[in-house]
């Protein structure tokens, strides 16, 4: 760490001022969501009054959102899709990462390159052909369409992160299990994988937030209200033509963000580990 010199004045210039300014920039949109969602329409659309505070807070927008729209259905769909596609991605991720990180075999370099390349394929390159494929399979407006396609975004990431984690585990335990006569599969399931729980949490939490965030495939594949996810539902149904239901939109934005933020808050360290994996070699 740098040698600490100077008193509070130096510290406020070097630390608190830039940090404070940045935090205001970062957090203001969330404050604005909360404030807007509590305003009655008479305040929302009054350009004379100071917009940053609520004078007469009301829960009307929340009540309307929950009773007049399918918001709860969308929330459930989002949760279901994110959970299943994360689970699929973790299983396939392990199946890729374990041999790539722990075994020697012909073709491993090619597969590792392929996984990295798949991770970097931009999604817009795939959505038009995928839309055609999904509709010819008759999967339009089913959650299956996104449950099948989200893992294509998540598997390469999970595999990459897990490979890094797997490499850091010492070989001795596996060797001992092999000498004692365990098969490779037994060694993997009973000895190796239980050691890697933190790696699974990192990959899982990251994949889960990515899946909750996905928009393009959901927008194209899901056009019926009862199969939509929160981001698509909010954009497609709370904006009618040129009319924006701002109160409900902000309530939806806040309610849609809260579950992700709560899950994330429990696993911040794992999330950061996942975020920086690959870029930073410890």
């Amino acid at each position: 760490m740098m040698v600490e010199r100077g008193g509070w004045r130096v510290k406020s210039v070097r630390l608190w001022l830039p940090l404070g300014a940045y935090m205001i920039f970062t957090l203001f949109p969330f404050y604005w969501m909360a404030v807007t969602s509590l305003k009655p329409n008479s305040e929302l659309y009054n350009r004379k009054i100071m917009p940053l505070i609520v004078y007469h807070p009301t829960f009307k927008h929340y009540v309307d959102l929950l009773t007049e729209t399918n918001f709860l259905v969308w929330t459930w769909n989002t949760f279901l899709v994110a959970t299943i596609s994360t689970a699929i991605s973790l299983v396939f991720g392990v199946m890729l990462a374990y041999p790539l990180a722990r075994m020697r075999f012909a073709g491993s370099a090619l597969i590792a390159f392929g996984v990295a390349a798949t991770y970097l394929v931009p999604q817009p390159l795939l959505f038009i052909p995928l839309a055609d494929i999904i509709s010819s399979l008759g999967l339009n407006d089913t959650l299956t369409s996104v449950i099948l396609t989200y893992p294509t975004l998540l598997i390469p990431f999970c595999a990459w992160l897990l490979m890094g984690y797997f490499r850091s585990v010492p070989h001795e335990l596996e060797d001992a299990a092999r000498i004692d006569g365990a098969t490779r599969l037994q060694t993997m399931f009973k000895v190796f994988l239980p050691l890697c729980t933190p790696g699974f949490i990192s990959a899982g939490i990251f994949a889960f937030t990515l899946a909750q965030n996905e928009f393009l495939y959901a927008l194209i594949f899901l056009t019926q209200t009862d199969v939509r996810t929160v981001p698509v539902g909010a954009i497609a149904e709370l904006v009618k033509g040129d009319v924006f239901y701002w109160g409900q939109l902000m309530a939806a934005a806040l309610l849609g963000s809260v579950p992700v933020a709560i899950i994330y808050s429990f696993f911040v360290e794992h999330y950061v580990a996942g975020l920086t994996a690959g870029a930073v070699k410890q």
Partner: protein
Amino acid sequence: MSTTALPAAVYVPVPRRASGFRRWTEREDVFSWLMIIPPVVFLLLLVGYPLAYGVWLSLENRPVARAGTFVGLANFIADAHDPVFWQVVQNTFVYTFFATVLKMVGGLGLALVMNQDFKFKNTVRALMLLPFIVPTVLSTIAWMWILDPAFAPVNWFLRYLNIANPGPSWLGNAHLAMMSLIIVNVWRGLPFYGITLLAGLQTISPELYEAATIDGASTWDRFVYVTLPLLKPVIYIVTMFSVIFTFADFQLVYVLTRGGPANATHLFATYAFDLAMGAGQLGLGASVALAMLPPLALIIVAMSIYMKPNKS
């Protein structure tokens, strides 16, 4: 293990006759391939095949829900004669360049600020990542309302201070709309840079700074000759990622401007979307999406030449 409870006689090792099949699956390469084949097949079907099918589509005249006819490179020729296409190319470069530079500089600044000892550091870091966690579409909706010309705080402030009345239409003017998009992109992407670069900074040994200080290096010297060279690999990877995903961005533009006003903010992804999903021209849309690859490859090659850390 529960085996200790068993009578010793049961535990006499019975040499199981390993069948040929069993021995085969226990081979390192066979086991590896058996493990790897299912996910690879999955990815080939849902990434490899669509990619190839996209190339095929771009060579077809293919209206939605009807059979296509092979037209060769006609779609790409049509793109080259389409002024909107060239506008899209320019927009994408402007958007990617400014957003990336701002995120890189801002992220580095943020990482340096965060790399000091202070109270509540973990809380601050957790809050800082929120823009990156929260579903992008939802936070972008909030930004849209922040930038609303009539009822939003930005213009209220400008009116209050008598700077402008009624205040600019942030998403209605071509240049302001692009600027707004870049600001929102930076808002969302800065935490990724900041946190990753911070993790990079923390791997730099304090002894190097001490040695440099003893040799009479100023704060600036230490930054230029110690921090930057050691951080270069991390900066390279983070920027590479960020450029790819910024270049291919869709969500921000779709929510904030839908490519408007007058195509001033259309990017490759949103224009391809409009052509394919809006106008129903799957072939033409696929050709626009594919056209993003050569410039993207060019940027990546250029970055590799100029930014790649020397391995030796």
